[in-house]
């Protein structure tokens, strides 16, 4: 129940968006079965939301430690490039996935060490890989789009399990696994402790250094999985464009999820709803059929409205307004009550 109350604003926002899109595109909620798989705009959103959803899982943890990971977009490109490279070299699916995850883990360790041990500000530390990572990916693909035809890898991007697109299954499964790991153990609370006050947490016996390295590694692994999905989806590694600016969407998803950029308490479920909200906006704009010049402006306005509605200050003003209104009504009622008593 507490979880439901925590994510209520995000759920309401999503519901409002769905109604809004349905107003422009009446068949939005239609789902039908084609070739044994569920097809419809909603399924597209679940599938297309996978990369940002996966990134949001890792990003939530990083942000909970009062950090930020700008490199995830570039890590998508690297992991995708590595996976495609391994597949085109006939190394097999298992090796391709292992190498992609190894690349993501290496990137995460690099970020974590820079932040936790070297002590560089997270935004600067991860900026290094954000700018250089795409270059690394291009070295792997030799600057071209590395196309492959391998049904096993392609399945991860465009296959379906019980009619549900594989990318959707992957991000939901990842989110559940990570949430269970953090909430069934004390890990989640320790991460929150580090985010609230790293020194106090360390004094209380929390190994903050290892924990911070671990969350950046988790973020790298999530980005690697997102990279594999993105690459499998188009059956090719496009180092120039894969994951481009996606780190910003992931951060936005975390913020729309009501998580504070100052660290501390976090909710992965809320971040994922944030990712779904962003994808619903994107897909909704495409379905509504506006000219493409308006895409970004419409998205910006909707995001602004959502954030303003969620603003704690606005909530205070709202409660204050209600309080004063109630006081005035009571004051107005009082004189009439008195003659009766």
């Amino acid at each position, binding site marked *: 129940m507490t979880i439901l109350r925590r994510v209520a604003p995000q759920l309401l926002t999503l519901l409002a968006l769905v109604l809004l899109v349905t107003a422009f595109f009446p068949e939005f909620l239609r789902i039908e079965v084609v070739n044994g798989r569920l097809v419809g705009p909603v399924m597209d959103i679940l599938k297309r939301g996978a990369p940002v959803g996966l990134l949001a899982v890792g990003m939530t943890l990083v942000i909970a430690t009062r950090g930020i990971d700008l490199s995830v977009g570039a890590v998508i490109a690297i992991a995708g490039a590595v996976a495609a490279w391994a597949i085109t070299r006939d190394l097999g699916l298992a090796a391709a996935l292992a190498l992609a995850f190894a690349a993501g883990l290496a990137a995460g360790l690099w970020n974590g060490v820079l932040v936790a041990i070297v002590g560089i500000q997270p935004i600067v530390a991860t900026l290094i890989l954000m700018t250089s990572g795409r270059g690394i990916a291009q070295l792997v693909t030799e600057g071209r789009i590395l196309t492959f035809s391998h049904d096993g890898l392609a399945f991860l991007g465009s296959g379906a399990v019980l009619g549900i697109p594989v990318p959707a299954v992957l991000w939901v499964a990842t989110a559940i696994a990570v949430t269970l790991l953090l909430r069934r153990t004390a890990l989640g609370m320790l991460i929150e402790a580090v985010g609230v006050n790293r020194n106090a947490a360390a004094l209380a016996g929390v190994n903050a250094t290892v924990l911070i390295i671990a969350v950046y590694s988790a973020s790298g692994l999530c980005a690697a999985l997102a990279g594999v999905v993105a690459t499998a989806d188009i*059956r090719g590694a496009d180092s120039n464009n894969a994951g481009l600016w996606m780190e910003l969407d992931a951060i936005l998803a975390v913020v729309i999820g009501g998580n504070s950029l100052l660290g501390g308490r976090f909710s992965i479920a809320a971040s994922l709803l944030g990712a779904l909200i962003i994808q619903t906006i994107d897909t909704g704009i495409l379905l509504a059929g506006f000219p493409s010049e308006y895409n970004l402006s419409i998205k910006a306005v909707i995001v602004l409205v959502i954030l303003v509605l969620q603003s704690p200050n606005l909530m205070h003003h709202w409660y204050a307004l209600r309080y004063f209104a109630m006081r005035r009504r009571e004051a107005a009622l009082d004189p009439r009550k008195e003659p009766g008593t």
Partner: protein
Amino acid sequence: MKRLLASAAFVAFAASGAVAQTVGFSQIGSESGWRAAETTLTKQQAEERGIDLKFSDAQQKQENQIAAIRSFIAQGVDAILLAPVVATGWDSVLEEAKEAEIPVVLLDRQVDSDKSLYLTAVGSDLVHEGEVAGQWLVDKVAGEPCRVVELQGTTGSSPAIDRKSGFENAIKGHDNIEIVRSQTGDFTRAQGKEVMESFLQAEGGGQDICALYAHNDDMAVGAIQAIKEAGLKPGSDILVVSIDAVPDIFQAMAAGEANATVELTPNMAGPAFDALKAYMESGTEPAKFLQTESKLYTQDDDPSGEYERRKGLGY
């Protein structure tokens, strides 16, 4: 060995004088497969003609290009090829080249400087490319009604604007052809696929779409996958026409999944070298804009052969 041959050729030709022997080439970078192919072809063309090509990769930075041109001038090259990264800010360095009497040829992009500052510009007419694609569709459907969806390039970019208007020019007066949906796919495969999915959803699962026009092949390749995943046959249920002629689209054409592509040739250097040769041997001033051919390729034009020919070019 190659270097030895090149310098031997250099000595031999230097004796005959008039022909360009050392040419500096300032390339933008290698941001796309097409540009990598342009670099490869420029080097090939130079080698075929026995020209010593000095290559400089600017990594998308104008200051690197200006520095490269200054160093070409200092080395006393016979001519300079320039693929300008932006349109403005070239006046002073082009004037320096002019004072040193080194002709400059622009490749595939234009500059805003005075036309007297460069010998000629080799490039493709983007509007014409769109027209060729549109004309193919007009001929293909031959009067049958056809609802077209369009994948635009990056919003506001000149290829997106020009290829759109060219296609619209071609279908003007053919009321049977109508663009029903048009959205940007940012020139990328991933966006091409995502936007095509929404087109398919919006147009009765794709039943109401007769043809797809994509502003580049990469978006078409992404869209073809979306069409297949929706259970339709690209190339027959939905006709696919796009622009660029990159290797992957020929693979799709060979598999019957794409119908036509309009070539944006990466061989801009060939016409540039020809113009330089004519200018240096007989002083013929070329026209200020040399338009490359926008050749149409269909499934009948040996797509698998074209794929083999192109795949080694670095696309």
